[in-house]
């Protein structure tokens, strides 16, 4: 149970997000699409603006004051990220443009040089396209094969089947921590334990986990962990690949350019040390600094508090939606976070989305970049409401009222 004081505080959290304070089509905005991208607190927006006004310069290159300030702030953000997920060292934090780039980096730099025909990469049927397509590409390039663990009607992974797929041909396992289309919390601990015993590396796609729960990569004991800044209240175009140092060390750079080298001659170029080996070119400096501010914001609240508060709103959402006539919940896993997908009568999700938008309620509709999940359920898409720490029970009441209205229009 969450302490009463935190419940009260949740109202303050909402006020920290300027974008939430507006009307859409004449109704107060209810933002229920944070799984796609979360809003930013004023502290993030202000940090980025202050950096742009006062400190902007390129990083790692200049002797002048602004360059020094920019580098300090940028590298300071890396330290914050390392602490936030309990990385062993800041050298394990590779800054990318997002989860997508992080996963592609592992596919191309870790897997591609070593994969042999007949090797398998094991994923689940629940994955976001970002945790499917990079593996398909590298399989095509190497003759390896993708093996997909099945799911059940609740939207849970069949763990036994997944463990059975992980055998001596398996090169790597890719699994989401929390599935984006259905909100399923995947049994990553069991899968990692099983793979670890066979010395098979595991990549965890944490895009939907990091904003909602405490993540400790050392406790998880995985090998790679990928996530995006914009889903955790930071700017778009920022992301993280955490990797075990001993693995990152053995991997070749995947893009060449400035910053990732020690010395360049036409005979031989030597790579920079970790993590810079993987960060070619001028990075998203302001975005990363903003991500640092987002982490400060979350740490101040405490991820335990975020998780406890959100669980309460999530359970309320599921219970209230289940009462709506004509609704079919899609994704009823026993362990779930922040997301509920659903269908309303036979109204197409796109129409539901438009009618809700007209009432100020923002949800996501469609396949949520998880087409195989939709194929499993035999549906083109769903309507999906997703939560962040700024949502509350009244938001859910507004959602339900808006759904009633949609039913009236299509009655």
């Amino acid at each position, binding site marked *: 149970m969450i302490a009463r004081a935190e419940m009260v505080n949740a109202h303050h959290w909402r006020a920290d997000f300027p974008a939430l304070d507006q009307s859409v089509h004449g109704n107060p905005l209810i933002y229920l699409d944070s799984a796609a991208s979360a809003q930013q607190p004023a502290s993030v927006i202000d940090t980025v603006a202050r950096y742009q006004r006062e400190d902007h310069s390129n990083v790692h290159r200049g002797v002048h004051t602004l360059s020094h300030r920019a580098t300090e702030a940028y590298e300071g953000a890396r330290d914050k990220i390392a602490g936030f997920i309990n990385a062993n060292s800041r050298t394990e934090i590779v800054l990318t443009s997002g989860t997508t780039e992080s996963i592609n980096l592992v596919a191309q730099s870790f897997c591609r040089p070593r994969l042999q025909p007949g090797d398998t990469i094991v994923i689940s049927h629940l994955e976001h396209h970002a945790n499917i397509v990079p593996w398909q590409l590298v399989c095509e390039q190497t003759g390896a094969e993708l093996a997909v663990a099945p799911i059940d009607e609740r939207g849970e992974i069949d763990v036994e089947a997944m463990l059975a797929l992980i055998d001596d041909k398996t090169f790597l396992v890719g699994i989401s921590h929390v599935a984006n289309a259905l909100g399923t919390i995947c049994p990553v601990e069991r899968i990692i334990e099983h793979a670890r015993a066979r010395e098979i590396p595991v990549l965890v796609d944490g895009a939907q986990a990091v904003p909602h729960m405490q993540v400790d990569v050392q406790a998880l004991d995985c090998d790679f962990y990928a996530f995006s800044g914009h889903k955790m209240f930071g700017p778009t175009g920022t992301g993280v690949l955490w990797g075990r140092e001993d693995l990152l060390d053995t991997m070749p750079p995947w893009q060449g350019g400035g910053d990732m080298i020690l010395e360049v001659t036409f005979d031989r170029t030597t790579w920079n040390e970790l993590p810079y080996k993987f960060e070619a070119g001028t990075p998203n400096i302001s975005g990363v600094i903003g991500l640092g501010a987002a982490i400060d914001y979350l740490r101040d609240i405490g991820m335990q508090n975020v998780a406890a508060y959100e669980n309460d709103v999530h359970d309320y959402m599921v219970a209230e939606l289940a009462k709506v006539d004509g609704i079919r919940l899609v994704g009823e896993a026993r362990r779930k976070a922040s997301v509920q997908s659903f269908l309303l009568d036979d*109204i*197409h*999700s*796109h*129409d539901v989305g*438009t*009618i809700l938008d*007209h009432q100020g309620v923002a949800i996501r*509709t*469609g*396949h949520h970049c998880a*087409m195989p999940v*939709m194929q499993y359920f035999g549906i*083109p*898409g769903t309507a999906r409401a997703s939560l962040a720490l700024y949502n509350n029970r009244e938001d859910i009441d507004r959602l339900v009222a808006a759904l009633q209205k949609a039913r009236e*229009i*299509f009655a």
Partner: protein
Amino acid sequence: MQDLYRELILDHSRKPRHFGCLEDATHTADGINALCGDRLTLYVQVDDHGLIRRSSFDGSGCAISVASASLMTAAITGLHVTRAASCIDEIAARLTEGAASTGVSPELEKLVALDGVRRYPGRVKCATLAWRTLQAALNNAGTPATTE
């Protein structure tokens, strides 16, 4: 809201006309709205004089895209393909450029019911999907039409 989901639109989306496969189609094309996953297949039967004898569609989509396809197949039946091509342009202009005040060709009278989408920029593609697909079918494009 009722400007978008007019009775005629709801009616055609619930009971689409000309729904199903046309075995003796001379032209077919697939249309995909990548944004929302709407997909339809359009079948057109054109005779030796270039007249559209029959047309039909199947697939799945939102109320707007289904109603648009339903209204379209009714509207183009009996038209010459060159006339149908100019209808595509007229509808595209009407829905995207907002030529509301201007008149509409008699063949397209019922399609005025779709005018409401202009106020919903995210939905214009739903309304134009069938027409883009018709364009692809008549051009024998061979690749699926998209709304991008």
